[in-house]
């Protein structure tokens, strides 16, 4: 499946994540900072719950009428002289974009950040055909220069790298001779990429929100790269997952307000850019030709099922930034470009259980994700639903989960075993316990605690406590 990153099995990925102490420190720090900024931005509004309710209502209505809004969008894009391609599969989408590139005899293509083009593996297709493809978002650019290291966070793709590593990549690949200061690194990228924007044949973007009423697309960035990608090359191609749409400008505004606050705690990012069709005849900058590629790639199979709410997602990563499991294992462990709680729900749906059956178990079901979501996706409930589907219909819970359940079943079924087991537990598990949590458990707990903590057994068993309590004659 194309959204897959790497071939290592889940527990091997988790182990390398947990052993990467820089990454874990960076993730923890980023989570704390982004979390605090989101809470502050939400608090400033004062009535955040009302905003979330509005966001949810807009997304639910749009999904329930997705066929109409996509129809309206395509009509309005065409009216403004843009071309629309509806792609049911990743291959159809990439092939159409490749056809446009070939027709334009494009040699150089600049891109601004887009998850869906990662999902359809567009860069590989274009590069195979001989095009030079350049990512311009700073984080994506760093990853591309580092031999296509995969992204580890939806909003901050290079979160797992430190500045010294980035400096070394720039030295090797970009003739960089300055220090690891972020300002100097960013300036070098600015200077290098300027030349690329000005000489590129095609600009490719993702799409945060398409606006059905006007045939527009909205891009949300801080760096200004999407604006140069769309202002300078002669041809613009925008790729969108089919659910990334709103009815009118009024709803776009609400969702942008929710997105920027939830993603980075900003009231608005530096650039919210709304583009409609190619440029007018008398305009000098902007594309002469505009193509919109609308991608299904498994999304329609989610519609009409109990998993439909996952399509409400606006890709803010607020759920990622509060997830205790993501904090431990990092983005690469998910084996998908979509990581964190949203990735654990979405990846099995788009990529199948064969590759992603472990992800719904990479969760403590603590519901922090659901609480953080600005459009109220019941993420932890959907993770639980995945587990039900995996166990009931597919009969293939991860082996460790099965063993744990079997052992628990054995122990719990016999009174003697249960008594003995629950008595021994505190001392047996003591070496693995810190602060009343077990984070590196033995035996069947090993696989469990590799990705989540397990509460340490109480020193006093419930049975003993109940017995003593009754004897002491406490009030109930």
């Amino acid at each position: 499946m194309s959204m897959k990153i790497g071939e290592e099995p889940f527990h091997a990925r988790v182990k390398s994540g947990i052993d990467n102490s820089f990454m874990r420190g960076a993730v923890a720090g980023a989570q704390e900072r982004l979390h605090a900024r989101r809470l502050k931005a939400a608090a400033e509004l004062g009535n955040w719950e009302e905003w979330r309710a509005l966001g949810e209502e807009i997304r639910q209505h749009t999904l329930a009428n997705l066929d109409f809004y996509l129809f309206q969008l395509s009509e309005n894009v065409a009216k403004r002289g843009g071309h629309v391609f509806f792609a049911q599969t990743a291959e159809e989408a990439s092939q159409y974009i490749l056809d446009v590139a070939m027709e334009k005899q494009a040699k150089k293509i600049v891109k601004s950040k887009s998850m869906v083009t990662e999902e359809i593996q567009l860069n590989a297709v274009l590069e195979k055909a001989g095009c030079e493809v350049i990512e311009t978002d700073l984080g994506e650019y760093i990853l591309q220069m580092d031999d296509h290291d995969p992204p580890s966070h939806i909003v901050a793709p290079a979160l797992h790298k430190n500045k010294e590593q980035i400096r070394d990549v720039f030295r090797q690949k970009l003739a960089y001779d300055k220090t690891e200061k972020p300002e100097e690194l960013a300036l070098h990228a600015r200077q290098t990429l300027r030349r690329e924007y000005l000489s590129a044949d095609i600009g490719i973007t993702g799409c945060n929100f398409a606006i059905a009423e006007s045939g527009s697309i909205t891009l949300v960035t801080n760096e200004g790269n999407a604006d140069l990608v769309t202002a300078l090359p002669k041809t613009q191609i925008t790729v969108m997952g089919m659910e990334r749409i709103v009815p009118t400008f009024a709803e776009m505004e609400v969702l942008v307000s929710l997105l920027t606050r939830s993603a980075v705690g900003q009231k608005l990012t530096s650039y919210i850019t709304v583009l409609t069709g190619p440029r007018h005849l008398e305009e000098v900058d902007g594309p002469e030709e505009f193509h919109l590629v609308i991608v299904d790639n498994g999304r329609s199979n989610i519609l009409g099922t109990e998993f439909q709410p996952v399509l409400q997602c606006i890709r803010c990563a607020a759920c990622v930034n509060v997830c205790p499991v993501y904090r431990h294992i990092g983005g690469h462990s998910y084996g998908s470009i979509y990581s964190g709680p949203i990735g654990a729900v979405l990846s099995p749906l788009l990529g199948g259980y064969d590759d992603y059956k472990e992800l719904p178990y990479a969760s403590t079901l603590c519901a922090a994700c659901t609480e953080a979501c600005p459009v109220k996706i019941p993420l932890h409930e959907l993770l639980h639903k995945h587990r039900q589907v995996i166990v009931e219909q597919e009969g293939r819970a991860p082996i460790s989960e099965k063993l744990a359940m079997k052992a628990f079943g054995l122990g719990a079924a016999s009174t003697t075993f249960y008594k003995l087991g629950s008595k021994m537990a505190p001392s047996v598990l003591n070496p693995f316990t810190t602060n009343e949590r077990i984070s590196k458990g033995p035996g069947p707990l090993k696989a469990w605690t590799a990705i989540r903590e397990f509460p340490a057994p109480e020193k006093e068993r419930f049975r003993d406590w109940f017995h003593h309590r009754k004897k002491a004659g406490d009030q109930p």
Partner: protein
Amino acid sequence: MKRGRIHRREAFLNQVAERLGRKAYATNVQAPQWRHQPQWTVFQGYSEDDLLEVLKTQCAAIHTDVFETNKEQLPLTLQKVVSRYGGGPVVTWNDPRFAEYGLSHLLYHHWRNSGIHVHIWDPSLGAVNITEAEQANIGITFSDITLAESGTVVLFSDRGKGRTVSFLPQNYICIIPKSTIVPRMTQAAFYIHQQVKAGKEVASCINFITGPSNSADIEMNLVVGVHGPVKAAYVVVADG
């Protein structure tokens, strides 16, 4: 404008409709009145002066300098701000407001006579405009709508209003007529929505710009000035 092509729509939309439990895709839906509308209550009842205070406070958070002036003083203020950011070359929109606000002399004579290169956007020159913008130290535009809450200027592209004037130069200065300030993005979006409903064409590019470009992609350190301008300043003009 020549209508664009639409490929493979029928099968795609019918699949979506089928999943949603319909026989054929819907061709007419009205968005409902949303039950919650918290966006309209933000800064409700604020005066122009109140909103200006909100804007100024927010500008501190977005690394943007604010200069206040009036119509009479505007040429002098702009001249000072430009030299503060290192002078020319300067690129500006070709926008009638420059004349309305008494800036023609500064643009067409004063700067040019004092050795500051000024390029005024001219569609008839084609790609020369982009080269000029790329080499400019400062780009100057007016704000069409200004959002107090976020410290945002809204720019509608047009023949004389090139997109890259606010992106390619090293520094960006936006002149904000005080009367363009509204509470937040809600009012701007509503205005554009009304235009669309009335059958008017929206600008090919609408930019909501909030301060200079920035990135936190390297170890979550904020770097101000990435692909777009490195510095941004707003000149607010009392025009009441």
